[in-house]
């Protein structure tokens, strides 16, 4: 159709009006015109054209040339309209900031109508040139929710201002707390995992460690004991030392803490950063070998004034599914009766005493008997109340958190209470140059009988399963008996009386506090100062009635106190600058000093005439002692972070530390690190890769150290006191009590890490992968030396350990509709190998064969179990004759073996089983992989959280069962299953439990491969169902009620009570995966609510 305008016509106009001219063209061309009168009226232009050959198009344009009119072809009509005004483009500019108002450089701003894209600069500012009009703008930034702004009007030549305040994407902190500061997560080059504490706070637990189980790849948190308020172990990346702690360094709001972590109320915590690789931890160099956990407490944000109150109440109960099934009174009497019958049958000279006959000859008279477990355990309440008040204005903020927690123990007469407060105050001047803050967190804990010797060998929990069911805990007059053994058993002290007649109260006061100051005295250059204190004081009052003391009648009272504290002073200079637009530099230099000191005293009273007064005034003899100790750390630190366009990232750091704990020749250590990162998804070639929102590659290498060992002066030869009594005179002797080691140096950890972070499908699926290799050399350990030297150990750098592993975390938004479903998975594969040790190339647990559970040996994994290899029972005379026997000699050809006793492998093939040459490695406690999976569902007002942890492939040495519950000598109550033991060749039983013949049972108490079990487990740590009550209340803004089950179920083939034992507790020398009757972990049912007032 447009071709009609190319039609050539002849037109002659002489000073014609516009309308007249157009009508002429219409007439000549036969093309119809639409001529709005409104536009044409009043036009003064006079047109003169004289042409024979002109196109219609030319003519129309010539006519309209000097007017403000234009034309277009519509449906074959030439429509005259006003000419569009020639427009100058408009501008859109603004700033992209995060929730806290901090700029977000590199955010992507997109105009959806035109597809144009710009990015924010280092200050978060952006400018967009757009044609005037209406637009929809979208801002995206990794780990933040993308944001749209509709109907943005751009006017010609004008600047429209539009700021974006970005909200965090779920569970993802964009600005991550890192060593000595914060960093945008996208710019981090180290391996750091963050956890937002708000998602954890439904769990009815008193320790934050319990909330973190299975949440972070590479971080193993395990509950190795159920003692109220205690028993948690943290291992980052399989960290292991022999003597120094395996636990990471905990830093709360920038303050490295020196005391225990279990006094910290979980409700105070806002987020965690787990620093895993050497680059992330480098600035904590000397204490970072086990990783660092940075804890940030709650700080109010501007405009965020509110009051929150939360509470839960729960009931804890020991799950009985895995409880050892011991013999009942009737079964035990039968066992003992048969034991004597077998003795008379097989053992010449065997005699049975009258009281034995009286007790066991008629088992039918007994029923279940005394159930010690039931007597000593209970369903116990747990409760918690937290009140948080946050107020914040633009330049000041205040947060106050008050908490009370009470956990009664599931063992009777035990429990703990914690009162805690936290005040966090921040103030900023109006020009934002000066920032000052105070944090203060006092707490007070009262432990009642909570640190009694309940766990482990000889611990009270073991006693529940060895006391006789035939015996009552009470005398006829209702008082407690002392001994609860029946004839033939070893004497045991009544565990019920022990719990009831012991009062062991610890009261712990703790104050964590710091003051910080930030002053930006030149643009980009700030000075930061921080002064922190961690102050603790603990008193203990202990009293035990003489009825249950180890030495009978020795009623004992103790009063002791510990006062300790540390302070840390730090000063840093920070320089932050962008050069030539794209070169961003952050540099930090600093100085830090820390000192810890402790004072303790103990008074012990003996000779109490009665149990009425528990204080030392009632004792006739009081002895005491006191002591003190301190250590210090002096450090200089430096770090440079550089990035080009926020895309190519480099980081280098150095810490130099001097510690008083090391030998005088080796106090100083240097801990450098370097790291690099590349945000691949920012490259132009990635723009075409659909679906990938974010991709970062990073690598790091660095050296860190470990000085976490209990001794303050270990490398120094100290003088100890040894008394002697010449002619009844108490004389004090003094001499060296340990060997010095002036060359004791830092335990060093060299670590390489390579990682990848990926976000796809609009970041609905994010994925992180890390591979690390660590080499720890100079491992510190009390090295065993020949006792002929007069000493049995010396603190020493004994060897070298390699660790490596893979870590995966996946976080996925499976459903985003009205039913929301998120899943996060953390998975780690940690491996280790001992590569070097001083002579003789191994370190044994101890010298007693029956408890020499494991060996650290070159070429082996950490803590591999060591013992005999079980081969069943000797079946018959031929089997006995043809097999090697335990300690056989010429004078005793069968040694301690006989038909029906335990047969083990003759490792050295010399035909005799002995304790030195026939033991070998029988199991590895290191799991193949560990991790956790959290599923979160939300539908309308309901939410459901299922939190699970797992560990696969690690072995456990079940010493509790084999060493203590299968004793065939009748000295303690055996497992019910042991009734099915060997009694004769015709009646060999299950083939697991040997005969009871005197002098043949010793092998049953030596570690053998029967004790090794698979420790794999899947635990539902927590299941919480919540409901948010819809409210239209002026004051109450939010009310959520929830019900939860903690430790809901454990799926495991392990026959003991707690498969989590396979992470060593805080004492690295006690071994990994050794189960020696730990305090059971209760299951907790609870109800709770959280509410917000504004």
């Amino acid at each position: 159709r447009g071709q009609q305008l190319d039609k050539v016509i002849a037109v002659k106009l002489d000073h014609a009006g516009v309308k007249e001219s157009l009508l002429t063209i219409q007439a000549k061309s036969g093309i119809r015109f639409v001529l709005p009168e409104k536009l044409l009226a009043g036009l003064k232009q006079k047109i003169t054209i004289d042409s024979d050959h002109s196109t219609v198009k030319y003519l129309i344009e010539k006519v309209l040339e000097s007017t403000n009119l234009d034309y277009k072809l519509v449906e074959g009509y030439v429509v005259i309209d006003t000419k569009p005004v020639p427009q100058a483009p408009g501008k859109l500019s603004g700033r992209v900031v995060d929730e806290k108002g901090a700029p977000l450089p590199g955010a992507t701003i997109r105009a959806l109508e035109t597809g144009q894209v710009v990015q924010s600069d280092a200050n978060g500012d952006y400018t967009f040139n757009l044609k005037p009009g209406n637009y929809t703008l979208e801002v995206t930034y990794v780990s933040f929710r993308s944001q749209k702004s509709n109907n943005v009007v751009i006017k010609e030549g004008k600047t429209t201002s539009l700021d974006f305040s970005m909200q965090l994407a779920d569970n993802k902190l964009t600005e991550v707390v890192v060593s000595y500061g914060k960093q945008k997560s996208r710019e981090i080059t180290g391996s750091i995992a963050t956890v937002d504490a708000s998602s954890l706070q439904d769990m009815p637990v008193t320790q934050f460690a319990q909330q973190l189980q299975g949440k972070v790849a590479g971080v193993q948190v395990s509950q190795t004991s159920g003692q109220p308020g205690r028993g948690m172990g943290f291992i980052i990346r399989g960290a292991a030392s022999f003597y120094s702690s395996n636990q990471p360094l905990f830093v709360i709001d920038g303050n490295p803490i020196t005391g225990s972590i279990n006094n910290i109320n979980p409700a105070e915590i806002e987020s965690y950063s787990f620093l895993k690789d050497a680059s992330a931890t480098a600035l904590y160099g000397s204490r970072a070998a086990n990783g660092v956990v940075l804890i940030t407490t709650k700080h109010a944000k501007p405009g965020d004034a509110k009051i929150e109150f939360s509470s839960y109440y729960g009931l804890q109960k020991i799950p009985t599914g895995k409880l050892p099934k011991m013999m009942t009174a009737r079964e035990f009497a039968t066992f003992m009766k048969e034991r004597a019958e077998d003795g008379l049958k097989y053992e010449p000279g065997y005699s049975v005493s009258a009281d034995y006959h009286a007790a066991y000859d008629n088992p039918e008279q007994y029923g279940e008997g005394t159930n010690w477990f039931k007597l000593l355990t209970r369903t116990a309440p747990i409760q918690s109340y937290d009140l948080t008040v946050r107020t914040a204005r633009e330049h000041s903020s205040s947060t106050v958190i008050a908490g009370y927690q009470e956990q009664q123990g599931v063992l009777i007469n035990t429990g703990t209470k914690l009162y805690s407060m936290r005040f966090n105050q921040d103030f900023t001047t109006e020009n934002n140059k000066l920032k000052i803050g105070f944090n203060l967190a006092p707490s007070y804990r009262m432990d009642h009988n909570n640190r009694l010797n309940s766990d482990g060998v000889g611990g009270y929990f073991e006693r529940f399963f060895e006391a006789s069911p035939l015996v009552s805990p009470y005398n006829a007059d209702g008082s407690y008996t002392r001994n609860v053994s029946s004839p033939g058993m070893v004497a045991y002290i009544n565990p019920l009386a022990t719990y009831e007649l012991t009062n062991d109260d610890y009261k712990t006061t703790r104050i964590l506090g710091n003051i910080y100051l930030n002053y930006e005295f030149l643009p980009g250059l700030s000075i930061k100062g921080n002064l922190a204190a961690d102050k603790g004081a603990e008193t203990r009052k202990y009293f035990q009635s003489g009825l249950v003391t180890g030495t009978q009648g020795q009623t004992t009272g103790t009063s002791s106190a510990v006062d300790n504290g540390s302070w840390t002073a730090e000063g840093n200079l920070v320089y932050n600058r962008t050069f030539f637009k794209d070169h961003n530099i952050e540099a930090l230099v600093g100085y830090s000093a820390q000192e810890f000191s402790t004072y303790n005293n103990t008074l012990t009273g003996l000779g109490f005439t009665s149990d009425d007064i528990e204080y030392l005034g009632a004792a006739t003899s009081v002895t005491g002692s006191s002591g003190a100790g301190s250590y210090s750390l002096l450090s200089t630190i430096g770090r440079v972070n550089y990035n080009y366009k926020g895309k190519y990232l480099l980081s280098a750091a150095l810490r130099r530390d001097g510690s008083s704990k090391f030998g005088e020749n080796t106090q100083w250590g240097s801990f450098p690190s370097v790291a690099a990162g590349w945000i691949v998804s920012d490259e132009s070639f990635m723009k075409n890769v659909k679906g990938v929102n974010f991709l970062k590659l990073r690598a790091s290498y660095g050296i860190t150290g470990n000085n976490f060992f209990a001794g303050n002066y270990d490398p120094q030869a100290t003088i100890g006191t040894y008394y002697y009594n010449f002619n009844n005179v108490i004389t004090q002797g003094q001499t060296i009590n340990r060997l010095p080691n002036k060359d004791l140096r830092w335990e060093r950890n060299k670590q390489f890490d390579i990682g990848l972070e990926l976000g796809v499908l609009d970041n609905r699926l994010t994925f992180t992968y890390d591979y690390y290799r660590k080499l720890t050399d100079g491992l510190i350990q009390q090295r065993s030396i020949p006792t002929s030297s007069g000493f049995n150990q010396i603190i020493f750098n004994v060897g070298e350990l390699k660790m490596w592993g893979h870590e995966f975390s996946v976080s996925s938004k499976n459903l985003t509709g009205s039913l929301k479903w998120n899943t996060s998975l953390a998975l780690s594969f940690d491996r280790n190998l001992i590569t070097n040790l001083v002579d003789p190339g191994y370190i044994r647990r101890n010298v007693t064969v029956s408890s020499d559970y494991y060996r650290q040996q070159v070429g082996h994994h950490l803590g591999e179990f060591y013992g005999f290899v079980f081969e069943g029972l000797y079946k018959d005379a031929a089997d006995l004759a043809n097999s090697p026997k335990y300690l056989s000699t010429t004078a005793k050809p069968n040694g301690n073996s006989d038909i029906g006793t335990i047969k083990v492998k003759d490792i050295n093939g010399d035909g005799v089983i002995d304790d030195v040459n026939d033991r070998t490695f029988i199991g590895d406690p290191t799991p193949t992989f560990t991790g956790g999976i959290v599923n979160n569902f939300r539908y309308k007002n309901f939410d459901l959280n299922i939190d699970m942890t797992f560990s696969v492939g690690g072995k456990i040495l079940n010493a509790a069962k084999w060493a203590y519950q299968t004793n065939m000598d009748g000295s303690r109550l055996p497992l019910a299953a042991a009734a099915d033991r060997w009694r004769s060749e015709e009646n060999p039983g299950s083939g697991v439990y040997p005969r009871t013949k005197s002098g043949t049972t010793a092998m049953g108490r030596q570690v053998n491969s029967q004790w090794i079990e698979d420790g794999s487990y899947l635990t539902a740590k927590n299941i919480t169902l919540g409901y948010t009550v819809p409210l239209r209340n002026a004051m109450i803004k939010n009310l959520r009620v929830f019900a939860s089950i903690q430790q809901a179920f454990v799926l495991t083939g392990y026959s003991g009570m707690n498969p989590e034992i396979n992470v060593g507790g805080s004492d690295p020398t006690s071994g990994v995966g050794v189960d020696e009757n730990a305090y059971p972990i209760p299951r907790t049912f609870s109800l709770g609510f959280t509410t917000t007032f504004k």
Partner: protein
Amino acid sequence: KDFIERSPEDAYTDDVFYKTEQQFRSAVVAAYAPLRDVLVNDYFTSEMHSDNTIYQAIPGNRGTSIVERENISDFINTSTNAYVAATWQHSYTGISRCNIIIERLKGADLNNEVKANLDGQAKFLRALNYFKLVRLYGGVPLFIKEVTTADEAFKARATEAEVYARIIADAQDAIAELAPPAKFPQTGEATKGSATILLAEVYATQKKWADAEKLLNSMLTMGYDLNANYADAFMPANKNSKESVFEIQFLGGTLTGATPNVLSFHFLPRSKDTKLLTGISIDNTSTGGWNTPSNDLISDFEAGDNRLEASVGIAEGTYDASNYFKYSAAKSIINYVPATGKIGVPYIKKYLHAPLESPTGSGDDFPIYRFSDALLLLAEALNEQGKSSDALTPLNRVRRRAGLADFTNTDPAQLRAAIFHERRVELAFENHRWTDLLRSGKALSVINAFGVKIREQLPYLSSDAYVIDQHHLLFPIPQNEVGLNPKIIQNPGYF
């Protein structure tokens, strides 16, 4: 920087200690202390490990701590035995403390007389410990310098001759440097007399009889004498008496620094209440039952020997099914006949003086050397040199005090047997029996013969109990030492 240089405030470190006389004196006190630790293991390794004593069987408790001690008594202990290791370790702890003193005294700015006295005490203690070790274990690593680094702790075994040479040198120095007892009761410290009898016993062991005789004769003029009654020698009220040549000191009670003697109830049958014998309630079910006098020893006392009544008592009562003993009466061993339905269990009475001060132990000292030992050694040295009639004098001095008639036979072989017998009963339970058996060369025959009888008497004994050959004459080197230190070669016959 000073900030990171720290030393403990609540204790000295070695670089500031060992300067003053008082400090050296206290270092010497500390060198005496391990004697107690040796003692509580040495009654296994030197007395139960002989024909003198046995143990109370407890078949229901087969815990390592029970079994390992029984094994020493039965001569079936292995190298992993913790109590064999304990005697070794504690002896060496004492040696190490002596080494520190001897070494550091050399450069110390002290009065020469003080120096000599302290050096003498330390050398006596070092010699005493090595003498224990060399007889029980053979040639042992010879540490004579302070150990300051890990490397120095790893030493090979010296020969027996080298160890003896050091013992002799140390004892000679001690004799030269120490004075005889200045008064009685003595201070309890080592004296010239202590060092003299030690060296004499060393010479006797080496059959250097003339040297031994000379030393023992010198003791006759140092003021020592026998107490009127045998039992007086063990009375807590009679500590460090004229009869005492060297004894381990104890003090009862609960004061800080008091170190009670626990042996009095270790040596009683296991019972939930020992009050009948100890005078106060003590539950020794987990500590007692050891060092029970054997019938063989009891029957070796001659009729009328008042040492039997002083040394051995009878606890009468009944065993329950857990083999705990319920005491019903304390009886005399003399002409003892059990009451109907009761059992009489002999126990060591020498060190039990009821009532004990506290359940933690008594104040009884424990003798290492008594003057009667010196007299019997002298008799032996004289007899071995053919001076048999001279030998009768010291022997009969011991016998008379025991209420026995003089021995008059001067046949050297018979006299040798008589002296050997006299040592057994006079020094019973004083941890001399095993080394006396070794010295006399009779260990193999005596123990094997004892084994035949005792296995018959106690059917629960293992068939290889008390069946010994040459290798049993030495204890194994503790396995942990062999395992740690490749330079240590185990004694033959042990794994």
